[in-house]
């Protein structure tokens, strides 16, 4: 008993050109594909240019600054960041923010957790936890001062953070983390 179910007679299943050579060319598809390729290469170029400009983070466009209306306190940060890539958030204090030789600054939990704060430079003198974040105290001399926080976000997404220097209005901003 032979198994004819798995046998198929050889026919003209591969299309021919000129009725001669069985090539199986699909020129219509190929022409459409060439148009598609042009679009794709254009898109590649656009992506690279956007990247150079900083639209995907680590660039000029990604840098942002938000500050209190009286400019006593401001935060420099990157509003577009990449996952697993480190960046620096700089808190700048004007003379009005420094009282009694120290600076108290409240930093929301999202900075530590979502944005992955790894290091605070310089080390704070004291930290108080509560109210959805941490309050750090730094001794300060007067004049302008800055504190840097090294961030390394892990999870892509949109994260909102809030930072407030004692005596000033809080500043809030949004950070987009790309994968």
């Amino acid at each position, binding site marked *: 008993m032979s198994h004819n179910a798995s046998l198929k007679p050889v026919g003209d299943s591969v299309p021919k*050109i*000129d009725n001669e*050579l069985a*090539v*199986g*060319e*699909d*020129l219509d*598809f*190929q022409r459409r*594909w*060439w148009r598609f*390729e042009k679009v*794709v*290469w254009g898109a590649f170029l656009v992506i690279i240019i956007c990247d150079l400009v900083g639209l995907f983070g680590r660039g000029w466009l990604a840098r942002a600054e938000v500050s209190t209306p009286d400019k006593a306190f401001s935060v420099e940060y990157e509003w577009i960041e990449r*996952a*697993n890539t480190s960046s620096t958030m700089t808190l700048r204090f004007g003379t009005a923010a420094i009282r009694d030789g120290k600076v108290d600054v409240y930093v929301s939990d999202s900075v530590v957790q979502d944005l992955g704060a790894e290091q605070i430079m310089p080390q704070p003198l004291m930290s108080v936890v509560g109210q959805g974040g941490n309050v750090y105290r730094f001794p300060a001399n007067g004049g302008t001062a800055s504190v840097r926080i090294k961030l390394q976000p892990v*999870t*892509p997404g949109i994260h909102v953070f809030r930072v407030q220097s004692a005596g000033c209005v809080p500043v809030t901003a949004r950070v987009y983390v790309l*994968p």
Partner: protein
Amino acid sequence: MDTILRAVMGYFILLLVVRVLRRRAGSQMTLFEFVLIFLMGGVIILATVGPDRSVTNCTCAVIAVAALHRFVAWAKMRSARVGTIIDGTPLVIVRHCEWQTDVLRAMGIREEDIAAAARAHGITSLQDIDYAVLERNGRITVVRKARPMS
């Protein structure tokens, strides 16, 4: 979880990039092309696993890529359309001594490439070529004109 997502994304991006890159026509893969392919794969590897270099993470990524590849192979078998999109179609570049210049230009093939492919088929003169086909894997196959009966 995100490793698997990144593995899937990486697979399709590599597929797209390799598909739109023109193979150097008419030859087997050269050393440089192998290096280039490994380079691109390698860059994606580092991004796929991220900072988590554990066996668990990497094994999950391996399984995700293997399963995806198997799925794509099945899809190609089921649908000729998918096969053409992923692999491309053979293209006729010389037809009864007519050179299909638009195809040649679009695929970046020069006369020298066709001459080299012809030599591989034992043909020394371009006049003796009846058909030349650019196969899906980038090789050029050449069919010789039938010799007149003497």
